[in-house]
């Protein structure tokens, strides 16, 4: 069995758990592999009480979407998952300016730890009081190459769009690497 990871991280109360839970609500995305088909290590990962959901791709491939707490950030907890990390999503709560500093720290820590592609998703963008994306990009010092997408973590379509944006970005970066 092949396991790939997508990591979801962000400051405290950025919406990581809700993001995962919205995916978990999709009944057919929850896959509990047969114990015989996975190694003990894989089973441990799948059954770990960590906030995560598993998306079944085919009989041999699972994409695990993990909530990796950024506060406090434990680099070793990421190191284990980086082995098969496709990319990561950094969530930022658009109604909490206090998150700017923590999210900046998190972005720097991750970019030091891994070359995996990432995108930033601004949660609470359905709130009319939310900070506009252009200001968030400026404060987080994000280059134009990094996608910054709106996200409503309670809305499945919105969560899907975030994941698809990450996959698009992974694909785009791969082409860039070839040029």
């Amino acid at each position: 069995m092949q396991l790939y990871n997508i990591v979801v991280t962000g400051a405290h109360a950025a919406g990581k758990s809700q993001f995962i839970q919205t995916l978990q609500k999709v009944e057919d995305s929850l896959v509990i592999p047969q114990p015989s088909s996975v190694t003990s290590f894989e089973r441990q990962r799948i059954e770990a009480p960590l906030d995560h959901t598993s998306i079944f791709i085919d009989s041999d491939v699972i994409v695990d979407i993990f909530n990796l707490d950024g506060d406090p950030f434990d680099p070793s907890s990421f190191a284990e998952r980086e082995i098969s990390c496709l990319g990561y999503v950094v969530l930022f709560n658009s109604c909490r300016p206090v998150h700017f500093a923590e999210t900046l720290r998190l972005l720097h820590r991750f970019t030091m730890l891994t070359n995996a592609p990432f995108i930033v998703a601004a949660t609470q963008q359905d709130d009319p009081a939310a900070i506009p994306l252009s200001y968030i990009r400026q404060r987080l010092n994000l280059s134009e190459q990094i996608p910054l997408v709106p996200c409503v973590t309670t809305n499945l379509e919105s969560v899907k769009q975030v994941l698809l944006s990450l996959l698009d970005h992974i694909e785009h970066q791969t082409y860039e690497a070839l040029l």
Partner: protein
Amino acid sequence: MALEGSLRDMSLVDLFRIFQLGQKTGMLMLVGTQERGIISIAAGRLVDAAIIRSADRQVTAVREDAILQLLQWDDAVFAFRHDPNLLKRPVRITKDSTWLMLEGLRRRTRPLPLQPHQVLTLDTPLELAPLPDNDEWNAGLAMDQVRLLNLIGVYRTLRVFCQRTGIIPDTAIRLASELVIVGLVEIGTIDVPVISGTPKPVGQPDTAILQAQPVLASRVVAGPTRRALPTKRALFDAVVRRIREL
């Protein structure tokens, strides 16, 4: 949920810029140690304001005067709530927001603490931002700021600006910082270290990264192993398809 925080995380000037950028409508409440401030915003425009002394609930300042005093506050918590009813509220503040911000900055006894993205050096590339529609804002500019606005598009950096105009660097940085804070000048992208998707690898050999990203690996590996590409490509497409189907 409201937009909530502290002026230490986001200054009042930044909040005003957000209201303009997002054409926000609602009420901003600020709570300081001894006073409270209330600002009404309609479609991004400041329409009314007041400062109330907490002890006896006396109004101590209103309209432009209240805004200019609130712009001196550094330590207060705030909450902004959307309220479409404020669109019907009569406009009691006639001065332009940019003018008020510039005037508020000018009156400050100590400089506004800059956020990391607002810190300038002599070599920071600068660009002229889209200017406000009306002409009221430029009445708040100092003469050297007008020169800076006129010339920054040509000189691009404060170092060249200082060389050509004779303005001392510290003064130029202060004047330009104010223009950046109120959004009349933007920091350019050339030579600015920004977070990008291709950071330098630290403590992780490239080969491990390629193993970690099967899609990436499938495209950069050449030669005999290239046979794996269709499989990897198919796998990637399957992941995309599966997520679309959720």
